[in-house]
Structure formats: structure tokens, C-alpha cells
């Protein structure tokens, strides 16, 4: 069963929304960055939007953009990944509960704090009665959503799906993670993030919706060939070798390898080791210097990879070793979150 990427909507810390292809990058010198949002009022009915949190607004807007990009009117399933859901509303409800000693609370923030509100709100907005699910597995939440979707396609239960990754980085949550050393403290420039060689990542946030289908058309971006999720793999190089073998590929068949390097030297050293063991002659690229690190940043990686395949062009600002790929047939996307959760996604030209 082939699964194709038919449409994508992407709100990120880059000018990705409604951009055809990968736009010229915006570079950052600080670890806390928020999305470049479109003007929400052009895309949402003000009555609907009144009570929506920012994350839900972004999710509905990218969902609709991906649907219109795909030419598929109604997806058969809506499956989302989110590490934290609407953390902004969670914080509001929590703070109010603590400050007012469990009195005078409003239901709206509680309702929106529930992670599955994103998938549900998209479904209610589209009037979609199909399979609806929400994955919350930290740094591979988006890939978990994609993985279930692939199984539903293989079972012939669906012919199309809307898969998304949605997370926001509130000032308070940034501060919490900063306290435990997640973010960069040393000066850096995001264009050189993968070579910064200091502790901590650059944070980000984003909303990426992808419409998948079992059929393709002339505009189709790419095929998602295979996906593996791994928990604390003993030897990631062996796992990648095994993944390629199961898909009848050698490492030399991979035209570009895209890694989720986030600037944290400890985590990034794992990618450099994989590169040296399997992909030393391969064109190497990264994406988190554009997206920042957040729980569902892999969605941005899929958006970028799909665009590279469709345009048959690797922008120099994402390349790590300046090897120009000879072909754009197979791209391997490798992502890990704090050396615990790993994902491998194989995307191919179609």
C-alpha cells in the first residue's frame, strides 16, 4: 500500500505558511522564538475563533491549508501528535486554581487543556466523523500519529488522512525547561546551529498538517515508504541498517539523510556518529536550525523533506556537508528526542 503526501500546511518560526516550497530562512540568535503567525482573522470565522486558543487556531488553519493544498475535500481520519496540547490554557487553569484556591474557575481553559481538543476541534470544524486519535509520546508524538495512520492505510480502513503535529512554547514552559538545561545559554547563530558545539537546543514551536492519500496526482510531494519507531535502541546504527535492509535498500541508495540536529552537542553527536558509520559519502542535511526544537518538530522535517523531493532541490542553507545529491529518490529522516525516542522515516519520489 503506497501512502502519498498530497498537501501540507505549516505555521512555524519561518515564513512557511502558504509558501510554495522552502522559503528563504529567517535566522535567530536567541533560544526562545515564537511562530510567524498569519493574520488569523483572514482564515477563521470570528465567532468560532473567539474561544479558541492560539494553538487550536494554528491547527485549524494549517489543517484547512493542507486540505486545500491536497485537493482532497474530506479526510477519512484525523490523527494528531502533540507533546503538550494547549499548554497555554493548561497553565491558565492551573495558575487560576492555585491562586484562587480552587474557586472561581472557568471551564474553557480546562476544556482546551485536554490534548485531544486539537483533533476534535479540527473534526468538528470539518464535520469529519472518521477515525480520530491523539498521540502524546513526547518528542516522537508526530511520528506516532504517522505510524498509526500507515497501519490504517495498510488495513484499507482509510483512503486519506489528515496527520498533524502541534505544539506551542509558552514563556513559562520555556522557563521550566530552561531550568533543567534544555536550552542554549551560550551565544549562537541559528544558521550555524549544528556546528555550535555547546549544550542545549534552540527552542521552537509549530503547527504542521499533512494530508495523506493512497492515490497521487501531478502535485503530489512524495511517498512515505516506511516508518520505524524505536525506544532506547541499543545500537542505532544497527537499527538503521536493519530498517534499510527491510526496505531493500543499502545506505548508498539514500540520496539525502536529514537529521533532527537541534544544536545540543550531546544529542547531535549521535547523528554525527551515524553519519560517519553509514552516510559519510551521502548528502547530509538538518532542519531544526530552521524549526527550533519542540515535541512535534519532526512534522517540520517531513514538510521540508517532502518539498526537497518534489522540487528536486536541496537548498544550501539546510545542507551540512555540501555534497550535492545526484538523485532525489530516497531521503531518510532520522530524529531522536534526548537519546530515548527515535524515529526513522523513509520518503521517496513518486
Amino acid at each position, binding site marked *: 500500500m503506497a501512502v502519498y503526501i498530497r498537501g501540507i500546511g505549516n505555521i512555524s518560526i519561518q515564513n512557511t505558511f502558504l509558501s510554495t516550497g522552502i522559503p528563504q530562512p529567517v535566522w535567530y540568535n536567541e533560544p526562545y522564538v515564537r511562530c510567524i503567525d498569519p493574520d488569523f482573522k483572514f482564515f477563521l470565522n470570528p465567532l468560532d475563533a473567539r474561544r479558541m486558543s492560539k494553538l487550536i487556531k494554528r491547527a485549524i488553519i494549517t489543517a484547512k491549508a493542507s486540505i486545500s493544498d491536497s485537493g482532497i475535500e474530506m479526510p477519512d481520519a484525523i490523527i494528531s501528535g502533540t507533546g503538550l496540547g494547549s499548554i497555554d490554557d493548561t497553565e491558565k487553569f492551573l495558575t487560576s486554581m492555585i491562586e484562587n484556591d480552587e474557586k472561581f474557575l472557568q471551564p474553557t481553559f480546562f476544556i482546551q487543556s485536554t490534548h485531544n481538543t486539537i483533533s476534535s476541534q479540527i473534526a468538528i470544524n470539518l464535520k469529519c466523523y472518521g477515525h*480520530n486519535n491523539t498521540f502524546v509520546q513526547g518528542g516522537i508524538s508526530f511520528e506516532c500519529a504517522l505510524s498509526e495512520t500507515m497501519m490504517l492505510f495498510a488495513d484499507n480502513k482509510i483512503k486519506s488522512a489528515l496527520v498533524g503535529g502541534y505544539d506551542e512554547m509558552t514563556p513559562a514552559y520555556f522557563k*521550566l525547561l530552561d531550568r533543567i538545561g534544555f536550552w542554549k545559554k551560550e551565544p549562537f547563530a541559528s544558521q550555524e546551529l549544528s556546528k555550535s558545539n555547546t549544550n542545549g537546543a534552540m527552542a521552537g514551536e509549530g503547527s504542521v498538517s499533512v494530508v495523506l492519500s493512497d492515490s497521487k496526482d501531478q502535485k503530489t510531494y512524495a511517498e512515505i515508504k516506511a516508518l520505524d519507531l524505536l525506544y532506547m535502541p541499543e545500537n542505532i546504527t544497527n537499527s538503521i541498517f536493519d530498517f534499510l535492509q527491510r526496505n531493500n535498500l543499502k545506505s548508498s541508495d539514500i540520496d539525502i539523510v536529514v537529521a533532527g540536529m537541534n544544536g545540543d552537542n550531546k544529542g547531535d553527536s549521535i547523528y554525527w556518529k551515524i553519519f560517519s558509520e553509514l552516510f559519510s559519502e551521502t548528502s547530509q542535511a538538518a532542519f531544526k536550525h530552521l524549526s527550533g526544537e519542540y515535541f512535534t518538530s519532526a512534522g517540520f522535517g517531513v514538510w521540508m523533506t517532502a518539498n526537497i523531493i518534489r522540487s528536486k532541490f536541496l537548498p544550501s542553507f539546510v545542507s551540512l556537508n555540501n555534497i550535492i545529491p545526484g538523485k532525489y529518490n530516497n531521503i531518510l529522516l532520522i530524529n531522536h528526542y534526548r537519546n530515548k525516542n527515535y524515529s526513522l522515516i523513509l520518503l521517496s519520489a513518486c
Partner: protein
Amino acid sequence: MTERVLVTGLGIVSGIGNTLEETLNSLLNGRSGVGIVEYLKTNHTDIPCSEVKLSDSEMFSMLSIPETSPVTRTALMGIIATREALTKAGIIPDRSMKIGFVSATTVGGMEKSEQYYPDFLENDSRNDFIKVHDCGACTEVIADYFGGFSYVSTISTACSSSANAIALGSNLIRHGILDIVIAGGTECLTKFHLNGFNTLMILDRAHCRPFDASRAGLNLGEGAAYLVLESEESARIRKANVLCRVSGYGNACDSYHQTASSPDGKGATLAMTQALEMSGLKPDEIDYINAHGTGTINNDESEGAAIMNVFRDKIPPVSSTKAFTGHTTSAAGSVEAVISILALTENFLPPNLNFKSKIEKLSFEPVTVLKRNVKLKNVLSNSFGFGGNNTAIVFSAENFSKN
């Protein structure tokens, strides 16, 4: 269908028992876990809940975990139930096996976050708990207690979360990705949840009365429950004791309202219909429905309408066991899956406590007294979540089970 999915172990902790045996005893003796809160520190002491009858200290000690460890009550309960499921199935997770852990939770580490949040913002004293706030981290704490899992995933679809975890676990086996999956969910009571549900005005100040005309809301509960799901081949090689089979499941979205179910029960109807379709069963082959039956005005009427849509004039025995366990939110799907499987393997129909008079719009009444020595072949368990996340699962008896 590529593979049959077998259930070879169960583990549960809830207000009605800390083990599978205690749970069964409570069900057979009509003992509810609902009462005045003892462990949750809240001002809302007038709201009855069903708490697990263990303090955090007792759980730390049962599991030999140092009390200062960043392990929340949700994770502790999850470990207790997972440990029982693994022990019952005779499994020690190991890297040489294709074994995964799929869990479900709604608020993850909130139980500690709501106590320590001012510290999180102001000082370094509770830093260990920052990392275990998100839902996925909670699952990893449980998985890491045992080690040996090569696959971990977490689902959050409010009150149907752990039913979707069972469906995902079954898919992972059917697709040959894993041989064994421990699937279920865990959720402890939190002030966050209690206050959240309270703002929605759906908490009954008295003991809940699912499917009763006078019902006035739900009682929250806490609990954890896990199923050991296993491929036929793995179960055969291990000579596992097979309890039943996961024969079908359906997931549909009601797409009606963020916190209310549609009057005609559209999403629930679709979920049950799909579960039946996948199982290859006709409606009249279902011998028992363990309803979602929260006791809210809205749910029971909507779910009742959906049951009538699917089963027409041949409605099988129905009961909600939430008056026993309270509504264990994310864990409800797997808590009730375990209760459904107990009914299937021990041949009884659990009663729907506190029922007096029928809902006018519904054609059926729930089972009100315990019925024993009832031969059950197929049972259906419903789980519905806010936002219209509706899931139904069918469990079927296996001929070569323990008898």
C-alpha cells in the same frame, strides 16, 4: 486481518481493589469504591470520588522505589497494574523480544505539577518533576521501571484514551511490528481534573446512578489497568494461558460538540458498528455491553440512543460499572476492558449499581442484579471521550482457554 490478537494477562488497580482478584470480589459482592476523598488534598471534600485505597508511600514501598524519586501517583498505579499483568502472563520484558508498552493518560504528571508549579517557576527545588510533567514521560517512567521495552507510545483522547491504546496495541501485533504489547492506561485523581469536571457541572454530589432517570452526573475515580496482548504464535510458543481474543474495534468521531455527545449518538453508533464489522459478528451475537455509562444526563441518553441504533429490538444485557469504580477517565477504557474480560472468563454479568427507574427515551433497562453462570461468548466495551472521541472494542471467548 493478518494476525489474531490474544489477551494473555490482566492487571488492575482501582477504587474496588488493588489486584485482579480483589476487583473480581468487589464486582461479585456489589462493593463500590466511591466515597469521601482521603488521599487527594482538595477543598471539594463534598464531592465523592473512587480512590485507590493506597497512599503514595504504600505504593513506593510495594514497588521498592525510593520515595524521593520523580514518580507520580499516576505512574505508581501504572507500575502496579503493569506488574500484575506481566506476572499473570508470565512475562519479563527483554530486549530479545518484540515487546512494546502502549499507555494512556490525560494529564500526565499533573498530580505533582499542581503541587510544585510555584516552585517550578521560582526555584530549583522540584526540578526533577519538570521532566515528568508531559504524558509521554509518564509512560516512560512506567516502562523504565521494568526495562526491556523496545517500543513505547502514549495516547490521549480523554476518557477513551486507554481503549484506543488497546486498539493501537492490537494493530501493532496484527501488523507484525510487535509480538507482545502491554496496553492500557493510568490516571490518578488530581485537583486539576476534579476542578475541571466541577466547572463543567457534571459531578454528582451523591453516588452516581448510570442509566437512571434521576442521574445527576458522574463520580470521578482513579485507577490503572493493562492487558497483555499477544500474537497467536508468541502465545503458542510460550504456552501462554489465553483469556480471550480482541476480535474487533472501531473508532469514530461524534463531531458534535467539544464537551457534549450528539442526541442521536452518531459517533458512538459508528464506533460500535465498526467494531462489530471488524469482529465479523452480528449484533445479536453480542452477549453483554459494558457501557461507558458515566451517569451524566447527556452521555447516558446519547449512548442509549446509539445502543438502540445498533441493536434495535434485540438489546443485549447492558451495564455501566462506573458506580463501582467511579469514572477513571483515561484509564476507564482499560479498567472496563478488564471488567468485561472478567465477565467473559468468569461467566457473570456485572450489575449497574444504583439504578431505579428507566430513562424515558430509552427502550432498555440495565442489568441491576449480579447474574452468575451466564455463558458469554462476545462482549462489547464502550469508551467515549470529550470531543467525540468514541471507541468500542469487542472481546471474544477463546475455545482453547483455561477450561
